[in-house]
């Protein structure tokens, strides 16, 4: 019999029951909730007179709708100016109280973007099944967990039964071998992967990210890659457990301790694909060939190396794809064959569940240190992913570097990634953003998003246009 993939093992470990109709009941260990996709699920439970199956599997925090601006944030939930947003956050408070669910409230130390606080507190662990009513739940797969986003009906289903009804996905291995060049980051790796396989390339698959490059990435970097598995169409992305994983998890507040830790490590040592495991699809990339990436269009697959030109629709033979490129260029206000480095930025956003961890802020600060944002750039937002990341960054003095560069240092929230709070783009504005989606209107009505890494975003903030951060940093060394 062929060996098992990491996904096969995680699936088997959580299989409650295979049913005759081909579906399976999969047990869920950790259920993260936030204010946007949970209210209708709690309402459903109330209407049906149902209880939570295992209330201590839930962890809640408000992130999507909370203000990032310090003055508005200081007054807590009652201070949220947008009434509809305030009601939604209050509803989360009420539901957590009524159903006795642990919540890291708006200004409590544990609060943050749900996909940042899970791993950093140890609330999400290797070997777990993790779900959340949010597609970027794939992030937690970096720990060697089976983690994916679900809709609100499934949120209610997990609340009431601790299980999901699923069909097993297919296995895909994305292997990135070789070595990354200086200035090339996890974000560039995942954008290059999406550029190669497309936004539907992973549909129906669970993706395991492997190879020398993935093995060398930090946990933060692995989270960035797994976070965007959904942008390649895959609900779940994951990375095998290794020493880097264990070093990261050890001593996290809710990680097992003492003898439990030893038992857990023993259990987790099998969380990798067997050498003879069979994947339904294998995609290979070379690290040396990956340049810093910039998205030019309105889908994450519309991405190019910073040295490239914006594509010309005339070069595309498929009619639907050609129309897509033409529509994207029109929306983005770009011309075919123009240089990526000629794109001028109006705003810059450094944050989101993709790139708001301490390593991301360090990378952006390293570029911003001693420099100032371009006058033509109206605003540069730096939004840490959690209260804990914010505290660590302030301890390291990163916030001072940002403030001196004319960037704004904000409170933990999803912020301009999806612009549900007050942080948004104006119509026609171009934004260098470390977030995950460049869809039309995503960061504000008529806004134009370019997805980049934190160091590329900081460099763009200073130059006012996209620049190759590798050259930008070497300029400083010679100056």
């Amino acid at each position, binding site marked *: 019999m062929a060996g098992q993939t990491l996904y096969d093992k995680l699936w088997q470990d959580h299989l409650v029951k295979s049913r005759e109709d081909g579906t399976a009941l999969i047990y869920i260990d950790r259920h993260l909730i936030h204010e946007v996709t949970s209210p209708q699920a709690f309402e459903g439970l109330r209407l049906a007179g149902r209880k939570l199956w*295992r209330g201590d599997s839930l962890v809640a925090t408000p992130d999507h709708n909370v203000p990032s601006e310090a003055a508005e944030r200081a007054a807590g939930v009652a201070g949220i100016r947008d009434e509809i947003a305030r009601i939604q956050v209050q509803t989360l408070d009420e539901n957590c109280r009524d159903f006795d669910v642990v919540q890291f409230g708006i200004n409590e130390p544990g609060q943050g973007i749900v996909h940042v606080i899970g791993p950093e507190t140890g609330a999400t662990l290797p070997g777990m099944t993790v779900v959340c009513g949010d597609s970027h739940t794939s992030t937690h797969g970096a720990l060697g967990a089976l983690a994916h986003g679900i809709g609100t009906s499934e949120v209610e289903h997990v609340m009431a*039964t601790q299980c999901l009804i699923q069909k097993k996905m297919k296995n895909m291995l994305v292997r990135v071998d070789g070595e990354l060049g200086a200035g090339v980051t996890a974000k560039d790796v995942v954008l290059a992967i999406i550029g190669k396989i497309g936004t539907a390339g992973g549909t129906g698959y669970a993706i395991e990210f492997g190879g020398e490059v993935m093995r060398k990435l930090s946990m933060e970097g692995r989270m960035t890659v797994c976070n965007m598995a959904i942008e390649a169409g895959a609900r779940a992305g994951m990375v095998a457990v290794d020493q880097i994983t264990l070093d990261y998890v050890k001593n996290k507040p809710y990680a097992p301790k003492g003898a439990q830790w030893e038992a857990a490590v023993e259990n987790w040592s099998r969380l990798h694909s067997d050498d003879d495991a069979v994947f339904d699809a294998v995609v290979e990339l070379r690290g040396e060939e990956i340049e810093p990436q910039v998205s030019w269009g309105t889908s994450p697959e519309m991405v190019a190396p910073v040295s490239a030109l914006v594509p010309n629709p005339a070069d595309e033979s498929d009619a639907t794809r050609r129309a897509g490129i033409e529509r994207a260029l029109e929306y983005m206000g770009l011309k075919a064959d123009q240089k990526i480095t000629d794109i001028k930025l109006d705003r810059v956003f450094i944050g989101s569940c993709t790139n708001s961890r301490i390593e991301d802020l360090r990378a952006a600060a390293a570029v911003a240190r001693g420099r100032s944002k371009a006058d033509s750039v109206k605003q540069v937002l730096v939004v840490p992913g959690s209260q804990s990341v914010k505290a660590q960054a302030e301890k390291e003095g990163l916030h001072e570097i940002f403030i001196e560069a004319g960037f704004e240092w904000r409170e933990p929230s999803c912020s301009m990634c999806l612009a549900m709070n007050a942080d948004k783009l104006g119509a026609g504005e171009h934004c260098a953003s470390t977030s995950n989606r460049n869809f039309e209107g995503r960061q504000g009505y008529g806004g134009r998003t370019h997805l980049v890494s934190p160091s590329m975003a900081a460099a763009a903030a200073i130059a006012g246009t996209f620049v190759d951060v590798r050259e930008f940093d070497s300029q400083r060394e010679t100056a």
Partner: protein
Amino acid sequence: MKAFTQHKGLAAPMDRANVDTDLIIPKQFLKSIKRTGFGPNLFDELRYLDEGQPGQDCSNRPLNPEFALNYPRYQGASVLLARENFGCGSSREHAPWALDDFGFRAVIAPSFADIFFNNCFKNGLLPIVLDEAVVNQLFDEMYAQEGYALTIDLEKQQIVKPGGESIDFEVDAFRKHCLLNGLDDIGLTLEDADDIRAYEAQRREQAPWLFDAVK
């Protein structure tokens, strides 16, 4: 859940690939704590010429005359013809809620994003995958013939075109069963409560740290 057995309805186009859930229902409407009322804001940024706000009366907003769903010939449509990777992006169930609230009962496309596809079935909205060539032909016929209506029979797994010609489609047996009978799948899963408890007890032995409470 609303049952789906047979439906006959006017077809309308969403003629672009990779329609994401932000496009189906923009984020400002996700602040609602309800499941209903999203229909007037379906495809909001394409449908209207101004920026929509939650709670707003949409009846006086300027409509985009170039957006197909605003054409007189597609008024009352309940079957949406779409292109590849429909529903990609966020997991927001507000997307199928908005399609349902608008009046759509089925979406036909060459492919769907996984989470959206799954969410549809939970809301009595039938997503149907057909070969790209077949979808292309449906688009061509719909554009050529005003009043182009399709009859969808879930029991027979068949779409019948206006001329009487039929197209077979695949659907997962469990989902079909739930949809035909309007079944609540939480109730079905709870029938297996003993199996869930047995799994839990054994798992608690093997990996007790998974059951430690947070905070």
